[in-house]
């Protein structure tokens, strides 16, 4: 319990210290060391509760009552801050304060109701929340380390942006505190309180630069997340007044697993979908790209969207084997398919990453909706691999952007020759995202197997599997295209690039190492974090017992592949072949070097070749529209399905 309170309270104190640090150097030091302390604390948490079943903590009546008050007053405070932030919106955006008031009203109705349920055990630890805490702690630490230097450069490059770094880092820590709260609290109104804090923080961070575009996107993110918040509050109201299942405890709702739990679960599913940026709410995450890169990394990898999928995976036993679950899985599927296709269109590196995040979260949602042991396994591994690889990719893109002054994929031509280490980190991130033998593929493999055994609705499993098969193909295309750009031989001697700052290099290399480690050690992750969780669920009779279906030779072959991926470059480096270099084939018209050819009029012309974006073949607007409509219909069907 001490650890939990440390994880939640310490970042709050750190945030205060950072906000009021007298000098910039002191502030940076605060950021570094507090983030490290959090990472260590999350590791200690993992060690202390290593492979234990879910463990609940009670604080005693006085403290419990106090906690209720804190959550109540805190919730009101957050709502008031949000209302204050709405002071400059136009009349046409009346719905934002309306949504804030609506959700505050709902939550007050629940919390002030006479005889509302009491929460005896407001906090808990199980191996899934440990895994999440590790992700938040360790990845969050690396992002914070990276951000210190990045933000300094950012303000040097963008003098027009008001320097609000103290507040920026304070908010980042507040964000982490809320994330720890979300993954460790068993108290639903408490969960909602932390949930709203992440909404507030993301709003502030997205709008950091203060430009018109940033503010517009920040308000959009706020709106979407408030919609989710309203549904969450509605679920709490339902749980307050429903005689069949009157409880505020998360584990009781999940353990109930019956029809009574399905309605709040469906309502919370909508909240989870908004946070996880699933269609029809995915646009806020695209807009979040205007924020500085560490913010994107934070939102995409370890926090925010992970909170959304966390809650969905948490509720998976309730969805398991129901139509609601299947519909939820289909929403994830539609999102996965549509955004994978749209990502092919994108030239902006950060947008490619954003779409791929949404697609991967879609995959997790599919897993959560199906809710069998195997898909839970896949979902948890996906969350882990995605967090590490995506943080790595975002930070690498951020560094690249500072070096080449562009986010355009086409401008990253030949990065392998210009900044080998940076290119390596990018490549490892991409390989981690889609290629065997790296992590994501193990999960995809399990998904295929698990989807085929879904029998809620005839053909439902086949449908999910087909979506996965068709969505994976464009994924292959857009990643390979990008990697192709990175490895392309530069056409002329590249201009020298500034060095990667040491702190950034540290964060990048650490994340690269983590990506590799996660792939090598995935059986360990399975044994240490996933198996205890699914076993506990199975013991409670919520999901079918886990079956050990991974063949050992499959694992050995995976290891051989991974080793090959590592050893071939080493071998190449040790014994490079000595071949003569010539310029590329240009129909014999090349002029000294591969850069240019002699045109018809005798002049020199440079060769340019761009990637394929298939804009005529796959129309972004149309795909988005179709995805929104399909996901919207599915969502309404899901809510109605739960109500009936």
């Amino acid at each position, binding site marked *: 319990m001490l650890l939990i309170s440390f994880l939640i309270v310490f970042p709050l104190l750190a945030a205060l210290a950072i906000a009021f640090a007298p000098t910039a150097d002191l502030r940076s030091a605060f950021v570094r060391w507090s983030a490290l302390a959090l990472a260590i604390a999350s590791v200690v948490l993992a060690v202390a509760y290593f492979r234990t079943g879910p463990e609940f903590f009670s604080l005693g009546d006085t403290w419990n009552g106090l906690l209720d008050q804190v959550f109540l007053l805190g919730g009101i405070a957050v709502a008031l801050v949000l209302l204050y932030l709405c002071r400059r919106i136009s009349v046409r955006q009346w719905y934002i304060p309306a949504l804030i008031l609506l959700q505050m009203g709902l939550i007050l109705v629940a919390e002030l109701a006479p005889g509302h349920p009491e929460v005896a055990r407001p906090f808990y630890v199980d191996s899934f929340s440990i895994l999440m805490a590790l992700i938040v702690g360790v990845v969050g630490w690396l992002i914070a380390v990276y951000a210190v230097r990045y933000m300094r450069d950012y303000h040097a490059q963008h003098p027009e942006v008001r320097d609000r770094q103290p507040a920026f880092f304070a908010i980042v820590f507040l964000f982490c505190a809320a994330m720890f709260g979300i993954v460790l609290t068993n108290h639903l109104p408490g969960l909602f309180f932390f949930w709203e804090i992440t909404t507030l923080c993301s709003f502030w961070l997205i709008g950091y630069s203060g430009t018109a575009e940033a503010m517009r996107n920040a308000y959009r993110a706020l709106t979407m997340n408030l919609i989710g918040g309203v549904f969450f509050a509605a679920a709490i109201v339902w749980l307050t007044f429903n005689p069949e299942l009157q409880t505020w405890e998360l584990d009781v709702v999940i353990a109930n697993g019956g029809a009574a739990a399905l309605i709040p679960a469906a309502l919370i599913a909508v909240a989870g979908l908004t946070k996880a940026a699933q269609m029809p709410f995915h646009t806020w995450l695209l807009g979040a790209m205007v924020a500085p890169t560490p913010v994107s990394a934070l939102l995409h990898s370890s926090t925010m969207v992970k909170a959304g999928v966390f809650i969905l995976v948490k509720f998976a036993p309730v969805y398991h084997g129901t139509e609601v679950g299947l519909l939820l899985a289909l929403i994830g599927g539609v999102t996965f398919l549509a955004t994978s296709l749209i990502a092919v269109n994108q030239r902006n590196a950060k947008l490619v990453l954003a779409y791929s995040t949404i697609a991967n979260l879609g995959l997790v949602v599919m897993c959560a909706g199906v809710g069998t042991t195997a898909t839970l396994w896949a979902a948890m591994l996906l969350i882990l691999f995605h967090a590490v690889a995506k943080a790595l990719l975002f930070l690498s893109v951020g560094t690249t952007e500072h070096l080449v002054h562009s986010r355009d994929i086409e401008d990253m*031509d*030949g990065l*392998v*020759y210009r900044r080998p280490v940076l290119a390596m980190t990018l490549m490892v991130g991409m390989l981690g995202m889609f*290629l*065997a*033998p790296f992590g994501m*593929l193990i999960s995809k*493999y399990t998904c*295929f*197997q698990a989807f*085929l055994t879904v029998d809620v609705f*005839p*053909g439902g499993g*086949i449908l999910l*599997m*087909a979506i996965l*098969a*068709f969505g*994976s*193909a*464009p994924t*292959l*295309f857009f990643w*390979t*295209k990008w*990697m*192709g750009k990175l*490895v*392309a*031989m*530069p056409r002329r001697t590249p201009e020298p690039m500034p060095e990667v700052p040491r702190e950034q290099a540290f964060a990048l290399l650490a994340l690269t190492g983590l990506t590799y480690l996660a792939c090598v050690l995935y059986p360990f992750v399975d044994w240490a974090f996933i198996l205890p969780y699914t076993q506990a669920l199975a013991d409670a009779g919520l999901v079918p017992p886990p079956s050990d279906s991974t*063949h050992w*030779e*499959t694992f050995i*072959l995976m290891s*051989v*592949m991974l080793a*090959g*991926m590592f050893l*071939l*470059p080493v*071998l*190449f480096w040790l014994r*490079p*072949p000595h*071949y*003569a*270099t*010539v*310029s*590329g*084939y*240009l129909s014999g018209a090349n002029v000294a070097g*591969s850069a240019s050819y002699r045109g018809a009029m005798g002049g020199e012309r440079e*060769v340019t*070749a761009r*990637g*394929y974006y298939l804009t005529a*073949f796959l129309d972004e607007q149309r795909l988005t529209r179709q995805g929104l409509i399909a996901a919207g219909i599915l969502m309404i069907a899901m809510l109605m399905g739960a109500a009936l």
Partner: protein
Amino acid sequence: MNLEYWGFALAFIVLGPVVGGLLAGIDRRLTARMQSRQGPPLLQPFYDVLKLFEKDTTVVTHLQTLYLWAFLFFMVIAGVIIFLGGNLLLSLFAMTVSGIFLCLAAESTNSPYSKIGSAREMLLMMAYEPMLIIVPLGFFLVVGSFQVADILAGEPSQVVQLLGVLIGFLFVLTIKLRKSPFDISTSHHGHQELVKGLTTDMSGRDLALVEIGHWYENVILLAWLYLFFGPLGLLWALPIAVVLFFAEVLVDNTNARLKWGTTVKASWWVAVLFGVTNLLVLPFI
């Protein structure tokens, strides 16, 4: 897994190129006959590759050789997985990795012909990937396992149950074998608008590696085809698989090339109409 399968896997590593080269030789001779030519000797592919080892190798960038090593490595792994009786889906993933490294090798040269070749290759990968994934899934639904050993021990009727999947597979096999009408990224014929596409800037040993990789790939694809008929026994299954394999040569010689857009659309429609539909109606067969 037993000693027998280890033997198969070893045989694949050693004999794979021999069989693959012979298949390529038969292919070229058959093509020649269809065009009423005499055609090259059966061993011509071996002569070609041995010659390439005698030649100097020139590269645009040294790294392209590294990517080609990875291409060959993962191709061999993909085959070893199958011949070990292992996981078909995993083998497919390894094959995909291998294909991606070939694309990277072409991209790394940064010359327009190679680049367009590799872009088209990626489009082709996007086209055939769904159908190729559906094949192991179909086997899983029928046999209950992704293991090649289990598929081979299945019921002889599985090919009837998976007829749609087989048709879809034969369709994308044309792409995988780089045959017309889908040989848009590179082909065995003089390819005038793209020179040699993907392999334009590879020469000597590098090109030999690509050829050997393709031989392995041909054996792997033949093995996939064999799996459909495997339970019938070697005596029936192998001839059927070989005949179907060489039916692709006929397709090659009777078709003009398509554009990539048509290729992608056609392959996806085939995957839906034959592959997915087959899986959907499977419970009723």
